[in-house]
């Protein structure tokens, strides 16, 4: 198992090296935005009264983050990634950081690559518990008292799954473990951009935690950049 991965990773590295030698890649780009139609559910304010140390960090109670919308019906926290057509990439040396602050997860959706290190840190004065709920990856459940070192973990299979804090029921986030480096998480304005795509035929997938996922086929030739839009169907409840 482990060795197999090593081989895969090794190959991936070679590919990268090769492209690198071939000079600046003829990088095509897929960009666009994610929107919704219909009326999304109204996000309720989170009642943190049971955790005063967090509650006092907000003047008005923060809203739940399952559906975050922007101006012009744009949708945030959507993971847009290449689900097919791109080779597995080398594992980045930098760690993806997942922060617990004010009894919320920052970012709400954390996207990173297979076997990439993730660092989970607790900036609150209270003890948190991190309990990711993967289906195919190894499940673990650890607590992190304030002032303890960051938890470092890895996932060896591509999967998108929720993360929860057993101590604070309202704390829910998502981990998106992806095969390659071509991904983006939509922020304010629902925009995304996947640069440096070598020519080829790609399947682009957009995933949202409560609206599910959509895919589009995109072909990139040369260094052209294509614009696509994902439109999700919003439900009032």
């Amino acid at each position, binding site marked *: 198992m482990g060795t197999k991965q090593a081989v895969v990773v090794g190959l991936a590295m070679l590919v990268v090296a090769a492209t690198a030698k071939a000079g600046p890649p003829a990088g095509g780009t897929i960009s666009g935005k994610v929107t919704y139609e219909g009326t999304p559910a109204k996000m309720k304010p989170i009642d943190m009264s049971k955790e005063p140390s967090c509650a006092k960090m907000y003047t008005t109670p923060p809203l739940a983050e399952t559906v975050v919308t922007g101006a012009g019906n744009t949708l945030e926290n959507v993971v847009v990634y290449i689900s097919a057509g791109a080779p597995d990439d080398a594992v980045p040396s930098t760690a993806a950081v997942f922060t617990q602050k004010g009894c919320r997860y920052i970012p709400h959706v954390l996207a990173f690559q297979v076997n990439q290190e993730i660092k989970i840190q607790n900036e609150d004065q209270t003890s948190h518990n991190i309990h990711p709920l993967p289906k195919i990856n190894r499940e673990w459940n650890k607590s992190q008292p304030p002032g303890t070192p960051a938890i470092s973990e890895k996932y060896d299979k591509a999967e998108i799954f929720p993360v929860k804090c057993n*101590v604070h029921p309202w704390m829910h986030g998502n981990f998106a473990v992806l095969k390659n480096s071509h991904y983006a998480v939509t922020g304010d304005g629902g925009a995304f951009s996947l640069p440096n795509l070598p020519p080829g035929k790609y399947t682009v997938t957009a995933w949202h935690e409560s609206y599910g996922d959509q895919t589009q086929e995109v072909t990139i030739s040369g260094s052209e950049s294509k614009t696509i839009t994902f439109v999700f169907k919003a439900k009032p409840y």
Partner: protein
Amino acid sequence: MGKLLAIVLVLIAVLSAYPIVAHMFVLPEDISTHGHAIDDQLHETMLEAGLSFVGAQIVLAVFVWGFADRKKGSQLKNFPGGAKVAVIAAFVLVGTEVLALGVLGQEAWAEVYFTPAKPNAIQVQVQAEQFAYYFRYAGPDGKFGAIHPDKIDEGNQNYFGLDPANEVEARDDIVSGELVVPVNREVQLLMHAKDVGHSFYVRELRLQQDFVPGLDLSVHFTATKTGKYEIVCTQLCGLGHYNMKAYLNVMSEEDYEKWLKEQAAQ
């Protein structure tokens, strides 16, 4: 050495009794209608138990002082009356105590458990879960939406597993992380456990009741004083047990109505 033990025993008796006598640890103020009965019962018991404790320690001390390390060949005596006295004393003293405490002293229990909630009592459903309480008010229609465990979605604030899409009753249900009640109105708590066993404990209410999964119990109380009080879990329920709490917010009638409106607005 015997004399020393006697002195230490007396010291222990006195020092143990002191914090009680000096009221260093007073019960939190009672804000319930039934609490006084519990408090009276507790103080009466404290008196009896305290006396028997101090008494026994001192008798032990006196006898040890008197009869430890006597010089060789000193005369043995038998306790006047022998075992009979001891047995009779035990039966009379403790027996009456048992009767007094056990039989006569259950009014508080009766008030909490044997008298049903009045029909005009406000019904609030409380759900205990790892590791928080959530409170549900029926809303304008006065009906609770049904609970669908498979619909529970905490990230989306749907703690009870309501189904507003298909059930009208559920749409106006008010869910809060804080138990808000009007003062001097009887409140009936419908207790529901989402995952494991928990408990509902408010010191000032003199009220404690376990949540039993699969068994929806109910308790009722009347708060007599406005203010914020702590609700804590007293049944070991997992790693966050120590941090499982919520607040009981006793308001004036009108504040309560105002609060309901605000919640309904959201």
